[in-house]
């Protein structure tokens, strides 16, 4: 290995080490009554899917595996979580208006039925988060039922 390559490698290691000093805030908060699981009846199967496949980005309780502590992975996760919560936060379900809740249920239907959600990049790392066709059907039926209930 020549001197230039060695210097570059050392610089990269140093940069990586320095990056670790800069970490985003963690998305972890206590569960409140506003959480969707307390706001409405959800079939057991669907509840399990939502928590396993959605909560990491769409709630206030992200699970952080060991590699999530490493920059820049921690920042990528933080970005996903920020975007996810902005679009839909199950932890804050009780704070949404009835109109917003009905609209979000339609969003969930569209995203899940088109396989846009969960994100492919998320499923690759969390293989248990991928949805089988029957699970997609279950979630979609539930969104329709829940939206219907909210209409009354």
């Amino acid at each position, binding site marked *: 290995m020549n001197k230039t390559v060695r210097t570059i490698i050392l610089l990269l290691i140093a940069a990586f080490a320095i990056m670790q000093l800069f970490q985003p805030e963690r998305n972890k908060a206590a569960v409140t009554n506003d959480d969707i699981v307390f706001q409405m009846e959800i079939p057991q199967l669907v509840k399990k899917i939502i928590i396993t496949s959605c909560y990491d980005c769409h709630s206030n309780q992200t699970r952080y595996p060991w590699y999530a502590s490493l920059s820049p992975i921690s920042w990528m996760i933080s970005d996903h979580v920020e975007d996810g919560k902005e679009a839909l936060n199950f932890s804050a379900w009780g704070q949404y208006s*009835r*109109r*917003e809740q*009905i*609209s979000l249920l339609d969003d969930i239907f569209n995203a899940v039925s*088109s396989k846009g959600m969960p994100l492919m990049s998320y499923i690759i790392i969390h293989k248990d988060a991928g949805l089988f066709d029957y699970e997609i059907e279950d979630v979609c039926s539930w969104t329709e039922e829940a*939206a219907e209930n909210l209409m009354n």
Partner: protein
Amino acid sequence: MKRLSLLSVLLVAIIFAFQAFKAPEHNYVVSAGDGPELDFPEEVMAILERSCFDCHTAESSSTKAKAKLNFSKWNKLKDSKKVGKLDKICKEIKEGKMPTKKYLSHYPETKLSEKETALICVWVDEEVNKLLGD
């Protein structure tokens, strides 16, 4: 030889990709008889016909657009679905996401003015409140 066949596969893939991103033909829906039968106010219909129907009706070539919103199927939608779609219509145009930038680059005249956006959003609010029984 291997490199050549890889190249040709790549080329074919690129050509297919471009097909997917073709802008739809700009067909104005000429009259009520041609387009979806909707019970919306005149001013709203005028905007929808000009700026939305190209992609969001049955004749559209964009499957993605139709999956999200298809005015030809509007009357068959459940009220709960209508609420969701209406809510999103206002959100998307308010955020300037619809019509898409790509579509606007081809048909800049379909861009919604602030006044038109406000008009649609007011109409959305009225319709949603009606449906919610508020």
